[in-house]
């Protein structure tokens, strides 16, 4: 087990007039090598939850263990935990500050006190992981890049710390469809090639469901569904609509056919899935 959360509750401004209970009794286990999507509407507690994973926030009550170590115990080295769990914030391009991309990505390893030779190796490795050519990019200013590229540099600057787990908060927000697909395929590659444990946080299903293996749906501070995307779309479609998340068009189409009494599989995620299912269930292919 990599991360284990037991009865986590969190309240902002405890004892103040604006006291808000954000997380309610969260129980969650994340294994090494998992690829997870965390979905929920704005304000449901997603960002608050992931900030508990590496001790940025301390729960009001409950227990969090990372690799068996209880984060609330006295004397726990949170610095080490934060090296293991790399957190990429929303709009990470806003936190770029160095003069060159090399310096930007080298910042983390340098803080770890590594010698220059090792730092360079880490920078090369991290830039390669996000598909940025070292020779073309290392000496450029991060501010001369496009939005999508800046986001990849920010991702590289987390990867250079060599975390075991990567959490990305809304990694595709405000990118156009191409930029969104690029960053998702980088993250997929990092997961598959390096066995990285990944949690993708998003407020919309757009492409996230087709990318991940396990989906957590949050609603008003609770995890209400935890299953594979296929199972969720097949069995919990109504719940998704009820909490305002909506379904991909092809999934909605299958559910509407089913409601009309047609025998179709409703756990479809992509146009490919839907096409296959329609062809399979056609009484006889009626040609024009």
């Amino acid at each position, binding site marked *: 087990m990599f991360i284990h959360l037991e009865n986590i509750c969190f309240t902002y401004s405890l004892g103040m007039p604006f006291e808000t209970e954000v997380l309610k009794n969260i129980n969650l286990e994340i294994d090494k090598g998992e690829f997870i999507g965390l979905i929920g509407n704005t304000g449901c507690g997603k960002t608050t939850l992931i900030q508990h994973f590496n001790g940025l926030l301390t729960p009001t009550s409950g227990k969090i263990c990372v690799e068996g170590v209880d984060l609330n115990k006295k004397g726990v080295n949170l610095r080490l935990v934060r090296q293991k769990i790399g957190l990429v914030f929303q709009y990470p391009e806003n936190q770029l500050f160095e003069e060159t991309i090399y310096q930007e990505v080298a910042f983390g390893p340098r803080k770890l006190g590594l010698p220059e030779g090792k730092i360079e190796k880490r920078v090369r490795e991290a830039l390669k992981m996000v598909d940025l050519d070292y020779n073309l990019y290392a000496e450029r200013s991060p501010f001369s890049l496009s939005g999508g590229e800046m986001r990849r540099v920010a991702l590289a600057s987390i990867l250079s710390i060599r975390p075991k787990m990567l959490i990305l908060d809304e990694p595709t927000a*405000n990118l156009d*469809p191409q930029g969104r697909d690029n960053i998702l395929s980088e993250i997929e590659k990092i997961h598959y090639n390096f066995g990285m444990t990944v949690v993708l946080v998003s407020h919309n299903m757009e492409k996230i469901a087709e990318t991940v293996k396990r989906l957590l749906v949050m609603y008003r501070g609770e995890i209400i569904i935890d299953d594979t995307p296929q199972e969720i779309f097949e069995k919990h479609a109504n719940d998704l609509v009820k909490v305002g998340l909506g379904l991909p068009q092809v999934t909605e189409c299958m559910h509407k056919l089913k409601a009309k009494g047609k025998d179709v599989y409703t756990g479809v995620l992509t146009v490919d899935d839907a096409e296959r299912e329609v062809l399979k269930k056609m009484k006889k292919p009626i040609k024009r």
Partner: protein
Amino acid sequence: MKDQIKALDSINLEIKKGDFISIIGSNGSGKSTLAKHMNCLLLPTIGDIWVDEMNTKDKSKTWEIRRKVGMVFQNPDNQIIATTVEDDIAFGLENIGIKTTLMRERVDWALEVVEMREYKKSEPHLLSGGQKQRVAIAGAIALHSSYLVLDEPTAMLDPRGRKEIVDIVKKLNLEENITIIYITHLMEEAVESNRVIVLDKGKIALIGKPEEVFTQIEVLKQLRLDVPQITELALRLNKRGIDISPHILKVEDMVESLCLYI
């Protein structure tokens, strides 16, 4: 300048009163630049823009044009300035010196249209993203603008917030007869308009009714844009010789067609 960039290149476009057009295109295609030309936030290097017979280059008309063409931007937090919802909507009216009694009337009307009347005394920062964006829309229409330009108004909203905005925009167009220019990345939203303009590198790459534009899947993919899933499915089935119209844009229509075969 050395780094000059041609953001818009020979655009010819006519928008009729009462129309609902959407503009799509990848980042950097010129969508926002085009939008900002519509109410004199930018002036064209070459060419002219006319709003109700007024040239945007005519400095004496700038304020009148801006009153006619309301703007709503991506992030409502950048547009809301007052401490209560109704004060925020009154801000624009105060600036143009509207009488207090009339101001009261306009504020109430605008809040009614965006379905936010019960929140008129609320503090904007306590509202949801969709609600804030509706306040921003109310602020624009309170000036009785005939045209409303919305620049990716749903980019920061969750699915529920997105639907709220699309519903309000459709209502403004149908019931209040406000001409809508709607910029978006989302095809499901563009499908709701009467006419779609696809921009690429500052030029109009495609223009037409949604069913004409979204069925050109290859072109859209080349321009780095999404294609509505349901249209892609319809096209693929059609290619396989199944008698399903390739112009399907809505899930309901697809369900109806498929019912004949399954």
